[in-house]
Each structure stands twice: as structure tokens, then as C-alpha cells.
């Protein structure tokens, strides 16, 4: 006779689920409201979503120290809190972009907003666990929602993008599951801390099996982080998705995957496993360099930004390779700053969105923006600001992130890596400058069909304004930001 399982509710520590439950509850609430009244304007749903996100954020900030719960499945530690803050803030900014001037197909469905909140919950689960199964579940919840949201943009290209992303994502998921399986077979555990302990105990033997496991997990994370050579889906998907969505995809799924990568590779980097380090090193260098070179020849701004986002991901991946406390701080500093700048840049494309742009092959060609400064000096200046910040020109925000990560590479004695990073920043400057050159230095083309700010309204302008303000005044809040980040990173022991 099997013993009845009795679980004490207190031992579950339900509060460790609070933030995700808020998001899930919000999604369900949206679905229920839709049942009652079908004629609500999208602004209602957007604001409701933002409200739930704010409550969610409040719940996240409430934690301090590592909180465990649900049979140790949940682990809300410092880096999880930081990542959740970034996820929620980016999500709130993104969803405000839905209040665009033009009407788009996806925003007519309340399900879109429900899916969105489910996705946020998924990402929050992903970063708040060191159990590979829960990470997997979170990853898949979020990804499934994301695929659907991309497809709901309802253009041929969006459908193509969604299917492409889905296929690639399914493949990555399979790899992840396989990797998890191997580690379970090796160590008898799904918990990263226990996997780490038993791997260290066996001195990372048997080597071929460990290698296989690491490779599978790396491939899976590589897809999510769009590391070269697993990046091929990224430009097409970004191009197919709406600009706002593309900006979102370049930030939130990646920070979630970074946290998983950080937790996973920490096992190997802290044990100084040489072959893992070499593998990561090669991955990082290729991911930084190759997309940079491809981005040089892009004719479309969105594709250029897609490749540049890949390169930025490689830059931050380097911090995981370094594995020092400073580099971990660097990840969050960089990504928090990158969030505002990159989302701002994509939002700039979003406000210039034109339903039918005739005469060009893509939605946002460089040529469309030539001479923008003459037509709309303010937008040109702000876009230029974002480009200079992405290029790493001081004192704009991303320079400080770059400086911090290059600095941490130097402190960890990776001088060559630091030089490669610096050179890549110089290469990247060229294509960011290309847009600046088009906007400021070229003459406007006379084409009546091109319209600017067609999708702009006060909400969108406010979001961009916030991003621009953060980008320009970064120098004043880097210090407090670093203090917060280093507090959270240190309590979680990375």
C-alpha cells in the first residue's frame, strides 16, 4: 500500500510563485473580460496589461535574498530578480507600443494580450529556477506564446517568420530535452546545483557523455540567444515580425536565456574546464564578429539591427565566458542599458511604419530615411542618438555597458578578447554610422509616397522619449544602477 503523500502547504512556500501567478492571473482575467464584453478597445487591454505588469514588478522587488519553494523547483535569487525586473520593464514598454496610430490585425484580439502575459510568466519561470525541467517548461510556454504573437501580425512575411521561428525553436527544444536527459542519466538529478556537485565529484568523467550533454544544451541556448552559427533564423524573423516585436525579441527572450546560460555554464567555468571555455571562446568571437560583417552590407535597417543585436548578444555572452562577479554585473548592466536603447531604436522604426511602402523591397530601407533631418529634425536626432549609443560613443548609455564588460575581460586576464571586443565595436560603428549618414548627410529623396511618423502618437512618443532620456543621461545613474546590480549579484553568489 502506497503511503498517502501529504504535503504541508507552508513548505510549498507559495509566495515564491507570486510574481508569475500575477501575470497568469492577469492573462486569465483578460480572457474572462473578453467573454463578458467583446467590444473593448485595445487601449483598455494595453493598460490592463501594464497594470498587471506593475503589480508583478512590485511582487518581484519585494524579494530579498534567495527564496526557494515548490520542492526546490523555484529559486528566486538575485540574478533572477534582476532578470525579472528587466523582463517586466521591457514588457511594459513594449506593450505600450501597441497603442499605435495605425490599426494592426493582432491588437484586435484580446488573446494577444493574454498570450503576452502568459509569455511574461513563462520567461519569469525560466529565470527563477535551477531545475532544468522547470526551465524547459518556462522556455516552451514563453516560446509558444511568442510564435503565435508573431504570426498574429498576419502578413505573409510574419507567417513565414513564425513558422521559421517555430521550427527552429522546436529543434532547439528537442536539443534541450536531450541534453537534460543526458545530465539526468549521468547524475540522477535535474537540479543544476546537484548536477554540478556530482560532476565535480566524478571529475567531469566520462568525458564523451558530458561533452554530448554540454553540446546539446549549448545548441539549444545558442538558438535562443541567436549565437552564430545558430543565428540564421534571427534576421528573417525580425524582418517578418513587427518592429516593436522585433525589438522585444532582441531583449527579453535573450536575457532569460542568458540567465539560464549563466547558471548552466557557471558549473564548468568555475571548475575551469578548459574545453568548455575554448568552445565558448570560439562561439563568442564568431558571434561578435560575423554578424557585424554581415550587417555592413544590409540595405534594410531592421535587418541591420537584427544582425547588430546578434553581435551584442555575443558581446554579453563573453561575460558568461569570463564568469567573474564583475562580468556577471556587466551582463545586467549592459542588458538594462541595451534594453532602452535597442527598444528605442526599434520603436523609432515602428513610428515610421507605413502600411504600403512602394518602390522598396523591404519595410525600412536605409534609403527611406535619407535626409530625414530636413523633414523631421527631432526624430532624426533621437534615432541618431540611439545609433551612437549602440555604437558605444560616450557618454551615451551603452558605452558604459561596453566599458564595463571590456574592463571585466581585462580584469580576468582575457586581454585578447578585450581587444577583439574593441575592434568589433569599431566595425559596428560603421553600420550604425551608415544610418546617421543617411539621415543627416544625404539629401532627401523626393518621393511623395514616403511618409514619416505615420504610426506615431503621444504614447509612442512618450516611450521613445523615456528611452532617449535614459540613453542620454546614463552617466548620472550608472553608479546607483551598479550598486543595485552588484548587491543582487553578490547575494546570489555569482
Amino acid at each position, binding site marked *: 500500500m502506497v503511503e498517502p503523500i501529504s504535503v504541508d502547504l507552508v513548505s510549498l512556500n507559495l509566495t515564491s510563485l507570486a510574481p508569475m501567478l500575477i501575470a497568469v492571473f492577469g492573462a486569465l482575467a483578460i480572457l474572462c473580460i473578453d467573454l463578458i464584453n467583446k467590444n473593448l478597445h485595445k487601449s483598455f487591454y494595453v493598460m490592463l496589461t501594464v497594470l498587471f505588469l506593475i503589480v508583478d514588478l512590485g511582487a518581484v522587488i519585494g524579494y530579498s535574498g534567495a527564496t526557494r519553494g515548490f520542492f526546490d523547483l523555484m529559486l528566486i535569487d538575485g540574478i533572477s530578480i534582476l532578470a525579472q525586473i528587466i523582463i517586466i520593464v521591457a514588457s511594459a514598454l513594449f506593450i505600450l507600443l501597441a497603442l499605435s496610430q495605425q490599426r494592426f490585425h493582432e491588437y484586435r484580439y484580446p488573446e494577444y494580450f493574454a498570450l503576452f502575459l502568459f509569455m511574461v510568466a513563462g520567461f519569469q519561470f525560466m529565470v527563477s529556477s535551477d531545475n532544468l525541467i522547470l526551465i524547459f517548461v518556462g522556455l516552451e510556454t514563453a516560446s509558444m506564446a511568442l510564435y503565435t504573437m508573431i504570426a498574429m501580425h498576419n502578413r505573409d512575411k510574419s507567417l513565414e517568420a513564425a513558422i521559421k521561428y517555430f521550427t527552429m525553436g522546436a529543434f532547439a527544444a528537442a536539443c534541450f530535452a536531450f541534453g537534460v536527459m543526458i545530465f539526468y542519466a549521468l547524475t540522477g538529478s535535474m537540479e543544476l546545483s546537484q548536477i554540478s556537485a556530482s560532476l565535480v565529484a566524478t571529475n567531469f568523467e566520462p568525458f564523451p557523455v558530458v561533452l554530448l550533454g554540454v553540446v546539446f544544451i549549448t545548441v539549444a541556448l545558442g538558438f535562443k540567444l541567436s549565437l552564430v552559427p545558430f543565428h540564421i533564423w534571427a534576421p528573417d524573423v525580425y524582418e517578418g515580425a513587427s518592429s516593436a516585436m522585433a525589438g522585444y525579441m532582441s531583449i527579453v527572450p535573450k536575457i532569460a536565456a542568458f540567465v539560464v546560460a549563466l547558471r548552466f555554464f557557471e558549473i564548468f567555468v568555475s571548475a575551469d574546464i578548459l574545453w568548455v571555455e575554448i568552445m565558448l571562446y570560439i562561439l563568442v568571437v564568431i558571434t561578435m564578429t560575423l554578424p557585424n560583417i554581415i550587417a555592413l552590407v544590409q540595405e534594410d535597417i531592421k535587418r541591420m539591427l537584427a544582425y547588430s543585436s546578434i553581435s551584442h548578444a555575443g558581446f554579453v555572452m563573453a561575460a558568461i565566458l569570463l564568469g567573474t562577479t564583475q562580468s556577471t554585473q556587466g551582463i545586467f548592466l549592459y542588458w538594462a542599458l541595451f534594453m532602452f536603447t535597442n527598444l528605442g531604436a526599434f520603436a523609432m522604426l515602428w513610428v515610421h511604419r507605413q502600411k504600403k511602402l512602394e518602390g522598396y523591397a523591404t519595410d525600412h530601407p536605409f534609403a527611406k530615411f535619407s535626409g530625414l533631418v530636413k523633414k523631421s529634425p527631432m526624430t532624426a536626432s533621437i534615432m541618431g542618438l540611439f545609433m551612437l549609443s549602440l555604437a558605444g560613443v560616450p557618454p551615451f548609455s551603452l*558605452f558604459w555597458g561596453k566599458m564595463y564588460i571590456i574592463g571585466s575581460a581585462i*580584469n580576468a586576464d582575457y586581454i585578447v578578447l578585450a581587444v577583439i571586443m574593441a575592434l568589433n565595436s*569599431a566595425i559596428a*560603428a560603421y553600420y550604425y554610422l551608415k544610418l546617421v549618414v543617411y539621415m543627416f*548627410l544625404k539629401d532627401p529623396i523626393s518621393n511623395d509616397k514616403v511618409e514619416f511618423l505615420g504610426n506615431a502618437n503621444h504614447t509612442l512618443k512618450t516611450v521613445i522619449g523615456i528611452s532617449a532620456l535614459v540613453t542620454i543621461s546614463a*552617466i548620472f545613474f550608472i*553608479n546607483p544602477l551598479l550598486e543595485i546590480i552588484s548587491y543582487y549579484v553578490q547575494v546570489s553568489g555569482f
Partner: protein
Amino acid sequence: MQYLLSILIFFPAVAAIMGFIVHKDSMRMYAITVTTIEFILSCILWYLFDSSNGGMQFMEFIPIIAEYGISYNLGIDGISLFLVIMTTFMTMIAVIGLTETRDLKNMLITVLFLEMTMVGVFVSLDAIIFYLFWELSLVPMLYIIGAWGGALRIYASVKFFLYTFMGSLMMLVGMLYLGYVYYATTGAWSFSLADWNMLLLPYNMQMWLFIAFFAGFAIKVPMVPFHTWLPYAHGQAPTIGSVILAAVLLKMGTYGFIRFSLPLFPDASVSMMIPMAILALIAIIYTAMVAYAQEDMKQVIAYSSVSHMGVIILGTFALNVEGIGGSIFLMISHGIVSGALFMLVGVLYDRRHTKMINEYGGIAAVMPRFAVVFGIMLMASVGLPLTIGFVGEFLSLLGFYKASPLITILAGLTIILGAVYMLVLYKKVFFGPVTNEKNKKLVDIKGREMAALVPLVALVVYFGVYPKPILEPVDNSVKQLVQTMYVKSVTPSAKEKIAEVNSIGEAR
């Protein structure tokens, strides 16, 4: 007046932001007023400056990123004082002499922003803040060249930006490394130059760091073979862009060598003395020859700039008080003279819209006043005694004579070669009969152009005859610099060498 340096940095920036509101018809006067106030402020700085004190004055210190040791740290000494004054002065003159009419408001706002970054570079004592202003100065210059330049303006501006940006990133890596070394030695983060100057670095590390900083500075100077961006930038830039580029931006590189490379890496500087001198020598002779072969007036002056920057580098790496002091003086004088020459070419260009030498001839008969001013500037550029150009060039060469007489003699060719290409230029443009019909009706300089050029002529003569007001404060600060180098050098051979080139005994 405790915050005078901050005021100096941010006054133009604030004025630039407010300039957006000023109506475009009044913009020129607004910019002239702002730059004049800025110049007066810098003169007040000179007045309050204690010349007998070789150390840093007007220090300001506000921590910005305390976690990482980055602070807003300003200060000025005899080395940077005159560079700041020269910057504000040349900006003022360039704005007064501005003849551009397209998008004047945007251009003037950009120039004011540029002035902020230039002053910032010269007074920052924190490496990261220095880097910040250094990089930021690229953006307005990119816009000036790219928006108001000639036919190849976009290529020229992007090349200028990328070339400099790449070099500076290498420098940034060096700076971060040095910050780390400081942390490893003392347990605290700092990017302050004063703190860094306490570090004694091993020789190998000095060499690597010297190379990293060299990448940033040498491209900016520019030293051969990193000079290829300069002729394009000058050739395509509008007059005001060329004036500021030649007068101030290039000096940032040589200033960087004196402020960073020499005191931080004394042993590496001693070992690099001869290699640097050879690079400088190549610049002096080779670019002088290239200048001779040019058909475009502006290119002649652009290449002559590279050539003269070679002399400045030579003086700097003489590593003695005469040489370094001379090179600083030469920076000031070259700023004034080359700025003036670019302005003079601009005057001709405004009238004829061509810079080709063969389009001119016999201008002296049509524009006598112009010819006189050009002649004086030309003499100063060549380095005729009793002009401002002579003092610096002579001291630089004198300084290096103690290190290597042979190289100095070869470098002395600068005066001869300079005379050759400048006088040939002068002959072709100003003398002979007026062959081109279009040149017969040219109007001589007057009004605004006169107001911009006369002060330059006055300075050229005044400081040529009596350079002491500049040389004395420079001397005091340079003596301290040389002493720092002597104390900080770790290898005995370097110590000996520094003592040897400073025969009068300043080092001890």
C-alpha cells in the same frame, strides 16, 4: 571662480542648447557673442592662473561611478592652459570669419558643441572623462564635414570617424587595463591621472600600454602611416571645419602623448624615442614632398600640417624641457598659423569656388591686403625668425639635438622643404600676371574677414618677438613632468637617458 573649468566646458554646450530657440537670422551674432564670452572666460582663467606653480590648478573632483573609480576630475596646468585658450580663441575667430550660408544655425550649434568637447579634452584629469570628450568630439566634426563639405564629404567624414574611433578603442582598452593594474596594486579603483602617476609599471607592461595609447594618439595627430584620413577630411571639410580640425583637434593627439604617454610610461617613452623620431622624420620629409606635389591649395596646407605635427612629435620625444616646451609652443603656433592659412584659402574659395592653384595667379595685384596677410602667415608657417612659428620649431629641434644630432639635422629640412612648397604656392597664386579673367574683379578682404584675420596677424608677430608669456608657465609644468618621468622610470638605462638629454639638470 572655483568652478571656472566646468563653466568653461559647459558654457558653450548650454549656449548651444539655448541656441535652438534663437532665430536663425540672429544666430551668427549669438554664436560670436557666446564664443567671445568663452574666450574672455579663458582669459580670466589665464589671469587667475599662478604661472610660478607647475602643478595642477583649479582642480575639481566629483565622483561619478564610485564603484569603478571614475570621477569628474578637472584641472589645468601650464601645458593645457594655452591649449584651452588657443581653442577658445580659434573657435571665436573661426566663427567670426564664417561665410557659410547654408543651414547656418545648425552649423553654429554644432560648433558650440564641438567647443565643449575640445575644452573638455584639455582639462580632464580622469582617463575615462578624457576619453568621453575625446570620442564625443568626433560626432560634431563628422556632421560638419559630412553636411557642409565638398563632393566626397560622406566618404571623408566616415573615414575620419572610423579611423579615429578604432584607434581610440584601443586606447580605451589600454586605459581599462591601467585602471585594473591600479586596482591590483592598491586595492582601489581609480582612473585619475594623479593616482596613476604614482604607479611604477614594469617595462614590458609599459611597452604594451604605450602601444595601446599610441594607437589612439598617433591616428589623431596624425603620424605617418596613419595620416591618410587627414587629407580627405581637410580637402572636403568646409572652411570652419578645416580651421578647427587643424588648429585644435590635431593637438589633442600630441597633447595626449604629453599628458598620458610620457609620465605614465617613462621607460617605454625612452625606448620609443628613436622609433618615434623616425616616424616623425618620415612625416616631416615625406609629407613635405607630397605637399609640394599638390595642385589643390588646401591639400598643400593639409600636408604641411602633417609635416609640422612631425616636428611637434619630435620635440615631445626629445624628453627634455626645451623639446617638450617647444613642442607645446609649436602646438599653439601651429594652431594659429594653420587655422589662419585654412581661413585664407577659404576666403579665396568663397570668391572663386575653386581651390586649384592653376586657376589663380597674380592675385597680389588684385587683393594686396590679402596677399600681405597670406605672406605673413606663410612666413610663420615656414618658421621665419620673429614669427610665432620660429620659436616652437627652434626649441623642438634644439631639444632633440641632444638626443640625436643626425635626426635633428634631417628634421631641420622641415624649414627648407616648408619654404619650398609654401613659397612655390605663394608664387603661383600671388605673383605673375593675372592670367585668369575671373580673377580680375576679386574683392579684397574687408569687414568680417579683416576682423578675423587681423588678431591672428597680431598674435603671430607678438609671440614671435616675445614668447615669454607662454613659455614661462609651460616651462614650469614641463619641468615637473620631466621630474616625474625621471623619478618614475624603473630601468637604470632610462633614468640615465632622461638625465642625459636634460643636460641642464632639470631632471634631478
